[in-house]
């Protein structure tokens, strides 16, 4: 039987009104109601023009969408053999793996977004670099990084796709050098929060404290951690990864590789977008990829059932 992974995307895929196209079912209504009770306001306000690009709006919208879509797959008895999320996506993945309740997840994600906002500011940001290998980038970043121009490798998305995080003046030089060394793309992301680097150390610590107050269970299926790309099997390991992924690089390239090595053949990516399956697909012609942004829920249910037994 073919193994299935459920993937949960991270920031960058959000869009205005992204919670409006959730399946119109009683399951969606009941989850939104639970979100309203926990948050104290209508969750559908999170994705409007005013809020969607705030940290809270983005992160909670992605979290809610991921949880709602995953619940619909489960309702049809489609279960994952492994789950993985990119950065904020990890929290919905943790709910899918039964580590964390939906309610606790809402609270933690909101907290995470608020804490992250306190770190950033107009001097900070992130950049994306495509077309240089890690060795080169490590070298470039090391040559630029200093106390006054802090810059770090943030995400390792593929062998030749990275993001960097830190102060904009440092990032600017890194982008320039990367371009000179053959990067096909090197530009700022539309963000003022330097995620996934040591500037977030305190956020991680506070979040860990918050997670200590939640009920944490062992994952029902292996949860691929962002920090070390390990298939995690205990609640405490997942908790640690959820808290501190914010201050460490996301090793997504290794996360994809590990899922392949674990024998996963089917990848279902929760909406929005299809960034994560695209990253895996390039190197995995034998895989089958079903992003819920491109396929209807019914199609995915049909296709997963079809390919599962093959």
């Amino acid at each position, binding site marked *: 039987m073919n193994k299935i992974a459920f993937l949960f995307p991270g920031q960058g895929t959000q869009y205005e009104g992204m919670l409006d196209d959730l399946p119109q079912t009683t399951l969606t209504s009941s989850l939104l109601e639970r979100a309203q009770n926990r948050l104290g306001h209508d969750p559908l306000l999170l994705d409007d023009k005013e809020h969607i690009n705030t940290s809270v709006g983005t992160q909670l919208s992605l979290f809610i969408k991921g949880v709602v879509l995953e619940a619909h797959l489960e309702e049809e008895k489609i279960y994952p053999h492994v789950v993985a999320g990119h950065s904020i996506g990890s929290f919905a993945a943790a709910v899918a793996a039964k580590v964390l309740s939906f309610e606790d997840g809402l609270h933690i994600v909101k907290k995470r977004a608020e804490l992250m906002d306190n770190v950033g500011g107009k001097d900070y940001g992130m950049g994306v670099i495509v077309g240089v*290998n*890690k060795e080169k980038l490590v070298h470039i970043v090391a040559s630029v990084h200093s106390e006054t121009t802090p810059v770090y490798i943030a995400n390792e998305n593929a062998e030749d796709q990275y993001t960097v995080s830190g102060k904009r003046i440092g990032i600017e030089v890194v982008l320039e050098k990367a371009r000179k060394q053959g990067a096909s793309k090197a530009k700022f992301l539309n963000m003022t929060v330097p995620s996934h680097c040591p500037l977030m150390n305190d956020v991680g610590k506070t979040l860990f404290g918050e997670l200590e107050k939640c009920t944490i269970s062992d994952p029902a299926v292996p949860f691929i951690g962002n920090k*070390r790309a390990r298939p995690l099997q205990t609640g405490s390991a997942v908790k640690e990864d959820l808290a501190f992924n914010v201050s460490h690089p996301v090793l997504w390239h290794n996360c994809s590789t590990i899922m392949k*090595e674990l024998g996963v053949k089917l990848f279902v990516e929760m909406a929005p977008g299809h960034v994560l399956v695209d990253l895996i697909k390039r190197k995995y012609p034998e895989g089958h990829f079903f992003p819920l942004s491109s396929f209807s829920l019914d199609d995915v249910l049909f296709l997963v059932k079809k390919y599962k037994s093959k």
Partner: protein
Amino acid sequence: MMKNRSWTTKRDEKRKKLESVQHLVKGKIIDTKNMKEALECLISSGDRVVLEGDNQKQASFLSEALNSVDPKKIHDLHMIMSSISRPDHLTLFEKGIGSKIDFSYAGPQSLRVAQMIEDGVLKMGEIHTYLELYGRLFVDLIPKVALVAAEKADEKGNLYTGSNTEETPTIIEAAAFKDGIVIVQVNEIVEELPRVDIPSDWVDFVVQSPEPYQLEALFTRDPSGITELQILMGMMAIRGIYEKHNVQSLNHGIGFNTSAIELLLPTYGESLGLKGKIAKHWTLNPHPTLIPAIESGWVESIHSFGGEVGMERYTAARPDVFFTGKDGKMRSNRALCQVAGQYAVDMFVGSTLQMDYYGNSSTVTSGRLSGFGGAPNMGHNPHGRRHSTPAWLDMITTNSSMERGKKLVVQMFETYGQGNSPVFVESLDAIKVRDEAGLATTPVMIYGDDVTHVVTEEGVAYLYKAEGLEERRQALSAIAGVTKLGREQSPKEMRKLRDKGLVALPEDLKVKRTEAKRSLLAAKNVRELVQWSDGLYDPPEKFKNW
């Protein structure tokens, strides 16, 4: 004198173990549903267990069965696997059923292996070439239990392994004659076997697997993926190496570079009048891309490590070329073919992901622990060789009365490889991997002093002629294109190297770049391979695009 010591402790222990499963077996047959319980009786914690899995054929049912045993009863096994290829091979260690591993190749699981070593879940023995690992099965890694796969068995326990004999007889021999226990999964138990590949005396138990053993078509390269750059390199190799040194016998790797050469022999090779003069004897698996060369009468013999999915009817119909049994089907043998590839052939041609400036090469990359399987075996000059052939003698560069020939070890690659990274690097990732994984030595696939030739899209470097490391570096620089190493080269030096015969460019070899077209391939896709085979080749579904 140790008068009271028993000399039959191993035999006694085996007898006891066999007795302990009598309620679970009928003669030699273990009922499929009793497999877990039988393993729990037959294996003890700490035992050395060989689990069969090379890179193609896997004892998949036994691997799953071993994963199902109770880790409280059986733990800390010392596993020996030539290839770690299945996810459950490593789950064994996560569960604590196994704790130590000795292996040859872990390509498909190389990140997990590296992670588990780092996390202390897996204790690393050594990385071996296939032959070394087989060798140690008879020395200091003698197995207590062998878990292997065959195609068919009869009630007595005779085995039929057919074209995928692979390493099964070698593993079984090491266990069976040293009071180890041999357990075989088979696809089918039949009354009469087509032929006996392994006699029942060597086998303790047979279990019918609910599903056929896992088999991958690893040696099939679709000609439609061959590029014109690879064709150019193939033409240079044929002229500048095969023809120049009169290569009679050889092994090819599994890359597109070498499949291009296989498909150029009946066209380009033929036009040079080389048929019957070169590349007659082969040690390799039945590569489908060899079909046109075989059909055109180029190939006299092929001995194989294993079979190839889809080539069964074809190999059976060409017994003059392939090794076959009295039943008509092919017989392979991984250990013997590795020996042949090491000692008996003129040349090995392979590829690599990285090569340093002195010709040392490795396919391990940072954070991954993969090993090399058979490549280092065939990709080196065996100093024990005493017979001579024209190509071997052609490597002699001095007049010393003690001079001897050399095996041709050829590396072929494009200067820029995967992810647009240069293949020529100042320092191999393998050195980092050595430190990360705490290995005793750097995992080098082929050492620079064993490499006689390097072929890139720029030309051929004749490293065997290089006097000293500096000249070796210069010769590599001359064919390193626009990589950092290549930019070291000045036109003056290049001229000197070409005059000395250390480097040949296409024009030196009378190879026209403009002729390197896909139309030169004897078959341009899988369908044409089927046509060449007279319909005898049955490609796996994933290669059928018509």
